[in-house]
């Protein structure tokens, strides 16, 4: 039977990918950002999952304004790296896990989450920057990936509560998958940032730090943060944090925080990163 072994959250700032791709990761501006992932890079060598369910948002790349799925799941064999206007990032194509993805799509729809099934999709920095932060530069990603794209571009995005419940449904679906697979769920995006208008550059460190603290012990309180509160407190692009709640919902009621990192700034954005492990209370704390 498949199981969820860990959850990971991280910002997915495009400039981080550019810094890595252009060999600038040891510059004074970028070094502290990448250093925040050193622990994770070491940790994952012994905790390597077979599959990452990677929750991210498409930044008007695969989905234009023609079609806007609220929740989309990638069921393809592989996903090409998108040209976002400056040529594709020089990173490997992303290999999917169509069998697990099709199982998830069917399970989630029957569990009343009406996923859009995607059989061809280019993936942008939202998906590839998290992979780069955890696996560095490589010729081939060491994991298979099931992409789940969440609309946070056109209002309204799904609510935090809906996202948390989708996470819970993902857990149920993974646990019903017959093959022995180790699965991690990653929630990406955030933290506070605003990329538009005269308020661009907004960062709310107290909000971010409180979010990082609460997601382990008191996620209940985060589920009801309204869109308006995200906009006011975390900036117009801070709404991406609802994707962290999908990851959190997939880990069950209790989690242990293994790693936390927070840094301002990376370009326009506050970088947050967590590694969490589910705690199975039925087996007295052993995950």
């Amino acid at each position, binding site marked *: 039977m498949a199981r969820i072994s860990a959850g990971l959250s991280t910002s997915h700032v495009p400039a981080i990918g550019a810094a890595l791709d252009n060999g600038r990761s040891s510059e004074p501006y970028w070094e502290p950002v990448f250093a925040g992932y050193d622990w994770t890079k070491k940790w994952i060598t012994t905790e390597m999952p077979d599959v990452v369910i990677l929750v991210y948002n498409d930044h*008007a790349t695969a989905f*234009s304004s023609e079609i806007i799925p609220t929740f989309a799941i990638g069921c393809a064999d592989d996903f090409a790296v998108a040209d976002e206007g*400056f040529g594709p990032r020089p990173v490997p194509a992303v290999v999917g896990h169509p069998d697990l993805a099709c199982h998830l799509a069917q399970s989630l729809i029957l569990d009343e989450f009406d996923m859009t099934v995607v059989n061809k999709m280019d993936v942008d920095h939202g998906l590839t920057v998290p992979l780069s932060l955890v696996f560095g530069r490589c010729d081939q990603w060491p994991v298979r990936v099931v992409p789940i794209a969440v609309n946070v571009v056109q209002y309204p995005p799904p609510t935090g509560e809906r996202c948390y419940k989708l996470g819970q449904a993902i857990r149920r679906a993974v646990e019903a998958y017959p093959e022995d697979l180790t699965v991690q769920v990653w929630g990406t995006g955030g933290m506070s940032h605003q990329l538009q208008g005269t308020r*661009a550059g*907004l960062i709310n460190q107290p*909000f971010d730090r409180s979010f990082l603290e609460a997601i382990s012990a008191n996620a209940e309180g985060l589920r009801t943060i309204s869109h308006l509160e995200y906009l*006011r407190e975390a900036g117009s692009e801070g709404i991406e944090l609802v994707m962290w709640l999908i990851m959190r919902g997939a880990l069950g009621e209790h989690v242990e925080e293994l790693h936390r990192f927070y840094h301002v700034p990376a370009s326009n954005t506050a970088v947050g990163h967590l590694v969490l492990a589910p705690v199975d209370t039925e087996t007295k704390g052993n995950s």
Partner: protein
Amino acid sequence: MVDNSAFDDIPGTTVFTAERAHQGFPLNQFCMSLMRADNRARFKADERAYLDQWPMSEAQKLAVLARDYNAMIAQGGNIYFLAKIFSSDGVSFQTAAASMTGMSVDEYAAMMLAGGRSPEGVRSKSEGR
């Protein structure tokens, strides 16, 4: 009817609602076309002629030609679509963001290094907080 009026109470912020997406559709679709190198080359060769191939309003076209991102957003543009324009120009997200704030690129970069723009005073117009 969904009431989005509270969004307009946030200073310096335009929320990309379904209505704005409808208004901005031709502008945003033009932006999507810049995800291909051959289209970027055609756009760069004659921007006005390239824009004239799209059913965009004159205000949208003029905003693009001026690289006035606040004006593009006022015409229904969304920043993730508009990012294709400044990426085609070889301009960073930080430089593009700075251009919308009235600050110089250096002033904006210094603000970010110092921890970013505080939310104090820019949460709500009506509540003055």
